[in-house]
């Protein structure tokens, strides 16, 4: 076809639309548009969002060559670029620590960078240059495999709203300082830190994601927290620390989050919460907490069970509950207290909004059954309870079922779905 008598459909659209289109293309395609016509030659150069990954260059088996061409590509793009750059993201495992990255950051710091995301591949970690700390307009920072060592004069990122550090080497007090010197911080994600005792003071924080070996998590000042997800790994160090700890972890961690809507805990989180004094005395209520997910809860540890119970009974608006058992529970040391569940009779509390319950990795131990019985008997609007037994206990499945069938259900609508694969 060649209806070139037709007017150019697209080149005269406002630059904001052109940018809107170009940013939805892979950067390589966007730059390639420069050969279309004279009007398009430089349209890409004012893009304010530059997102790079390994698709920008030819991939071969030679990682060093790919890295070199990637570095060249990005450097050249920056060199040809005009105007401010608000978002700069390099997300590829081919990226390695090298001086070019320092120069990029320097360039970006002079160009109003707002969002910076750097993911480095396996290899030496990249030591972030001091010019990063001068990026006053930074609103989002994401670093993978980097080293952070801000100068003593660093007063924080005043505009930072989102911070995501993954496998980042930084001194513990430095990380705390960074967090509390970013007054607008709303989203914080820290993963794969070693033995970190974290004290978070972030008055605007709404989303918290923690994963790694944490000795302590103290949410000292996070009144607006809405969504929280914690995965705590264990080492001997930490185990020891747990044993010696005397503070009430539950309160330290969940004592100051009244707006919490979603809580998700993994691995040793419930164990962590169970350490310390009995929080039963404190009248904490989570009026907004709608979803609770606790994984690897050990139902042979009374303290952990108490934590779970305390949590769910303090959440009157709970809608969805997910619990997964721990398949490597130590052998029960004491005879389980069979009376326990009778004491917490249904008259004590009703889960008036609980609709969905998912229990996975069930081994069929006494307290697990007790817990299920309790839930079934106290949830008048329950719609679905799905149960997935642990794969290691095939024989016990029948027993679980037999008991399950006897439990009284407060909700006539309740469906029990037993998933056995």
């Amino acid at each position, binding site marked *: 076809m060649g209806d070139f008598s037709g007017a150019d*459909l697209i080149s005269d659209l406002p630059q904001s639309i052109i940018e809107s289109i170009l940013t939805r293309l892979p950067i*390589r395609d966007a730059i390639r548009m420069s050969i279309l*016509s004279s009007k398009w030659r430089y349209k890409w150069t004012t893009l304010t969002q530059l997102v790079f990954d390994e698709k920008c260059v030819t991939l071969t088996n030679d990682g060093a060559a790919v890295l070199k061409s990637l570095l060249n590509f990005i450097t050249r793009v920056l060199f040809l670029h005009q105007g401010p750059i608000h978002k700069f993201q390099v997300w590829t495992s081919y990226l390695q620590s090298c001086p070019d990255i320092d120069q990029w950051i320097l360039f970006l710091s002079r160009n109003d960078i707002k969002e910076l995301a750097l993911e480095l591949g396996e290899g030496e970690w990249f030591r972030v240059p001091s010019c990063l700390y001068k990026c006053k307009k930074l609103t989002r920072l994401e670093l993978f495999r980097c080293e952070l060592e801000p100068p003593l004069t660093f007063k924080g990122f005043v505009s930072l709203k989102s911070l995501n550090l993954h496998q980042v080497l930084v001194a513990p007090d430095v990380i705390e300082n960074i967090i509390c010197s970013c007054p607008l911080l709303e989203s914080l994600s820290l993963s794969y830190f070693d033995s970190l005792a974290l004290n978070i003071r972030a008055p605007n924080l709404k989303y918290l994601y923690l994963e790694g070996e944490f000795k302590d998590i103290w949410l000292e000042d996070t009144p607006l927290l809405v969504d929280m997800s914690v995965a705590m790994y264990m080492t001997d160090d930490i185990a020891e620390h747990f044993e010696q700890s005397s503070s009430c972890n539950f309160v330290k961690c969940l004592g100051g989050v009244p707006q919490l809507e979603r809580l998700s805990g993994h691995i040793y989180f419930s164990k962590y919460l169970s350490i310390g004094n009995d929080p039963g005395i404190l009248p904490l209520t989570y009026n907004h907490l709608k979803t609770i997910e606790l994984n690897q809860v050990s139902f042979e540890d009374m303290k952990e069970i108490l934590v779970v119970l305390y949590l769910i009974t303090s959440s009157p608006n709970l809608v969805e509950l997910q619990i997964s058992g721990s398949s490597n529970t130590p052998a029960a040391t004491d005879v389980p207290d069979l009376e326990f569940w009778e004491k917490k009779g249904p008259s004590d509390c009703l889960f008036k909004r609980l609709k969905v319950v998912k229990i996975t990795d069930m081994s069929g131990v006494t307290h697990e059954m007790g817990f299920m019985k309790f839930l079934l008997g106290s949830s008048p609007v329950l719609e679905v309870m799905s149960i997935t037994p642990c794969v290691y206990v095939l024989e016990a499945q029948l027993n679980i079922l037999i008991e399950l069938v006897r439990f009284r259900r407060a909700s006539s609508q309740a469906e029990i779905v037993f998933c056995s694969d």
Partner: protein
Amino acid sequence: MQWHSQMSEGNMEVVKPEMKSYIWLQTTDGSIQQVEEEVAMFCPMICHEILQTGMGSSKSYAISLPQRVNPAILGLILDYCRFHQTPGRSNKERKTFDEKFIRMDTKRLCELTSAADSLQLKPLVDLTSRALARIIEGKTPEEIRETFHLPDDLTEEEKLEPLRNITDDPRIRLLNRLYARKRKELKERQKLKNVEVEEEHVDDRSVDDLLSYINGGDGDTKGTRAKNKKKNRRRKDQNKDSSSNHSNGNHNKELDPLPHAGQNGDLSEVFVGCPSKNSTSQDSAAVTFSPKLEFIDGDIDDDLDPAMKEELDREVEDFARRLNSDWPERMQEILSLGQERRPVPVSINGNGSASRYTMSM
């Protein structure tokens, strides 16, 4: 409704909430339509107009819409607004509607984007931008130009710069250079015939310099290449014969037709000088390139001297044969020479779409 109380200021009629109220809109062609108020208010620009100026309540006070909104497009936009302003729609429903909504020809889509932007209807702008990006992605430059009626008004040289490293296969890249050069020569020849003042990319030279960076050329590449281009033209007219060897890494000799072989190891540079070299090789694989040759031939005016044309064809074919036969060794030699520079050129390219670019040049 909140709107009503605000609207009752100014010269508007007070409307009871239960009655459907309408807003009057006028497009640039003069035609006026009335639209349900809640639908019209979905557009920030219209909403703003109503609140600021109080217009739109009657036919004689219809709101004038921006020039980019013609009646047909307005109809589409109002359909969009009507659907989305209805409360209670699930996200899935909205998505399905959107996907169906944007199925239209490209011209309309562009008009819609433009109109939505002038009405400040951001969700629709995002939707249409996404659709346009999807149309563009993966297409060759030729295809994109066709789709959007873009004039092909860059000089060969300007076009070469970015494309040089777009293709995967260095062979294709070389061929691009060859074709481009050939076309340029033909153009130049025609110009000589017409005794036209040759347009010079003098003004654009700096632009080319800049762009060459993105393609892996070195700072001085451009200079030498440009010089060599001129030399080569002369040489061609003199029926040059080359003694050069692809593996020769001389890059500073002006007369050397293959100055760039070692310069940056970028093979696309290698053949700047002379497309035809030693017809040392044979090979069947030349056949693969012939369809492309035909394509190029289609462009050539027949008032070309047939002998010249034949010579060019021969050069191209020889060249193609060379590429196919001793390719691996050539690569090695050149790459090893280019070690000090950058052995791997920067490429902006798509996967598996290498073959398309031969056509596009």
